[in-house]
């Protein structure tokens, strides 16, 4: 998995590509935490994702929750790979409950549907 952050002082584009494994998730968490500490807007670019699992989805959810709590906006900078959209649907994220307003999960599914 590769994770890069392009930071222009206002918007930080976080690009996550490849297939995140357990160790990658820890690295990803650290990167996102660092970015959340300094950016007002975070745009996720997940176009290069080759696969993902629920642990990754949960990480994104936690990041979105933290961003909301800090007044940071989190959005998408790219289309979402169909595999991620399919995973979210299978996991019942379409009707997910308990997330923050403007649930990232629904955003992801919608982006995926648009791309399709």
């Amino acid at each position, binding site marked *: 998995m590769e994770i890069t952050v392009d930071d222009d002082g206002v918007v930080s584009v976080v690009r996550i590509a490849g297939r995140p*494994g*357990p160790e990658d*998730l*820890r690295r*990803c*968490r650290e990167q*996102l*935490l660092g970015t*959340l500490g300094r950016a007002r807007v975070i745009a996720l670019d997940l176009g290069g994702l080759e696969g993902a*699992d*629920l*642990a990754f989805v*949960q*990480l994104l*959810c*936690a*990041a979105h*929750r*933290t961003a909301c*709590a800090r007044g940071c906006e989190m959005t998408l900078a790219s289309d979402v790979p169909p595999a991620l959209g399919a*995973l979210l649907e*299978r*996991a*019942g*994220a379409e*009707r*997910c*409950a*308990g*997330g923050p307003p403007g*649930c990232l*999960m629904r955003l992801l599914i919608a982006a995926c549907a648009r791309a399709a």
Partner: protein
Amino acid sequence: VSAREPLDEIPESLVAAFREEAAELLVDMEGALMALEASPGDEELVGRSFRALHTIKGNAAMFGFVAMERFAHELEHLFDLVRKKRMAVTGEIVGIALAAKDCLQELLAPGQDCERDAAGAPEVRRRLEAVLAAAGAGPAVVAPRDASPASSPGAPGDASAEPGVTAPRVDEEFLREVAELLQDLEVALMELERQPGDGELMLRAFRALHAIRGDGAKHGLVELQSFVAELEAVFEQLHRSGEPASRELIDLTLEACERMCRVIDGAGSSAAEIALREREIEKMHSIAARRTRPEPAVASGPRRSWRIRLRPGAGVFTGGTDPVAILDGLRALGACAVRGRFDEVPSLEELDPAVCHLWWEIEIATEATLDTLRDAFIYVGGADSSVEITPVDVAAVAAPPAETGAQPTVASAPAPAPAAAAESGEKGKRPAAQVPSGGGDASTLRVGAGRLDALVNLVGELVTVQARLSREAQTSSQQALVGIAEEVERLTADLRDLTLEIRMVPVRPVFGKFRRLVRDLAQSIGREVELTTEGEETELDKSVIDRLGDPIVHILRNCIDHGIETPEERERAGKPRKGSVLLTAAQAGPSVVIRIEDDGRGIDLEAVRRKAVERGLLGEHEVRGERELHALLFAPGFSTSSRVTNVSGRGVGLDVVKRAVEGLRGEVRVVSRAGAGTAFEVRLPLTLAITEGLAVAVGEERYILPLSVVRECVEIAGRPDASRRLSDVASVRGEVLPYVRLRELLGVAGAPPPLEQVVVVESSGRTVGFAVDYVLGGHQTVIKPLGRIYRDVRWLAGSTILGDGTVALILDVDQLVSAAEAAGGGGAPC
């Protein structure tokens, strides 16, 4: 990075476990081979042999014991051909397999090097090649692996040393678990071969694969995880469809087992290996697809609706179970509305990415039964996981579940929230069906014998302390103390029984070894003998079992060499040509009786008497009963055989038997009928740690006599003139009873009381009494070994501590009688 620790870094305990397990498999294989000789067409026996070799090969590969792996593989190939009906079982094949078993066993002995070939391996290979050539079959194809330790994974040239290959984090526990799971998988596959439609076996194979995948995931073995996931999917598909497993699938899965070993070993990471695996998976899927019915066959009933709350364990992400796959499985059962619950996901600061905080609410309308629904969750692992299944009204399912926290829309009589229903237990409302998860499977633990010994020792100490407590309580005026002492006594007794029970193991493995012995022995001396065993499930303390083999071997040798006649002699006597030896075990109270019975010529009592007179054990005209004459057979160096063979006849066998059995605090006796056969009966205590004894007092000293030899206690008036004599006789119910005064025999100071108690014991066919001052009563004796200084005092069997804290010596009755006889007129036997 080395994919696996070098051999010399594998923990010795793990290697020992491997040796132990492989030895058990070889014993099982030997049993199968022996039976196969009699029933060459028995596929189950062929399967057992194949399976044993296959497992040994796999485990050996996992440890890097290349030579052993290769040797087992060559033999496995032979049985594979037999399994596939390309060869028939012959005496030569059984012989080769038995010789191969000996070779493997040689390597498995402690201290032996598992990495070399056994001395007999070349000869076995030569014979193997000959039978394969005769059958037109080629030799086993062995993967080209350098057997030298230098080529362990990670060494130059090893595939696993390629850059970018992730090193698996293999540890002792993982290797052990996977080895056990693979074995379980193989057992299930073998059974499936016989019962291809057995859903339970299919499920068992699936569970084993599932667990292997989980373990692989935990250890970062991505390749193993993905490979096994594919296999698991095939078996899950077949299980759901209810289709039988084909031979092709079973064969492929068995091959896959080997591949799993190679993946774990790190040797399976090369491009060629991966391609091979992919082809294998593709093949499996095509088999499964061909055989799968279009509609899943699930137990069905009327269409009902259920609400399910699924909370996987926190470790589900690393445990190899994919909750999404479970949800997919549910969807296959009927219309499903799934709501992922993300409300427990913490902030990023608090999140441990490996811990799952997600849970699900599902509503499903299905014809599947509750059991089928439960089955969908059997792999939700972790003790902290939970699944609640509650029936709801049908109408509720048409619409998706309501938003957070709200009750679902129901047309009538809404079911309570599952948790509430379960907790409230209100009448008329069905509680949620809790699906047990995590650790639901029965499991066993392998515990080192040393730990068990330590536990038994501690329990022994506890029993002694408890006895002291009870004694103190009896003399105390504090009622509360009495109550506590009684409670401690009860708990101690339970703990003692449980602890001793843990050490109990069946005699089956010991019995299994004798089949081969009898076969080889009979062949070597031109006899035809069939060994039949009964009561193999009878259990004995492990320490007794470990020491049981030698005496039984001696008795069997004796039966075959002296008891069973030649086939011609038997025919002349009107008996079947083949002699029979029956080996049985049965529990009888606090003892286990092992009986070895042959249908041979029986014991010639006149020959025994003649030999005894010749050796000065009997006077020429001395009359002895049958039992006493039989007892003479156990005298050192006694043999009626005029010839000495390599099997027996030297007169050392039965003497050894007697000493070994007595060393186990048991007794051996023989019963025989001329012309009809002989039976040896070995009576052994269930355990060596604790025994029932009779406590007696002589002066200030306390002694314990084993209760198993005590027949009765009688009271006699001592004669003043005879009080200092070592031995005397008394009339008991009109019969003369010789007795020995322990006071004189053991040199205890002081005068005996006017009335002496005589404890009547039976030892080696003799009935004799021991005069003591008082009989104190039964005593549960925790046996403590004596120190080195007392090692040569043969009449002492050990020591124990009585309830009042005093030490009592445990007497070896047989030795004591012999010592008294030797002492003759008096004096202490030591």
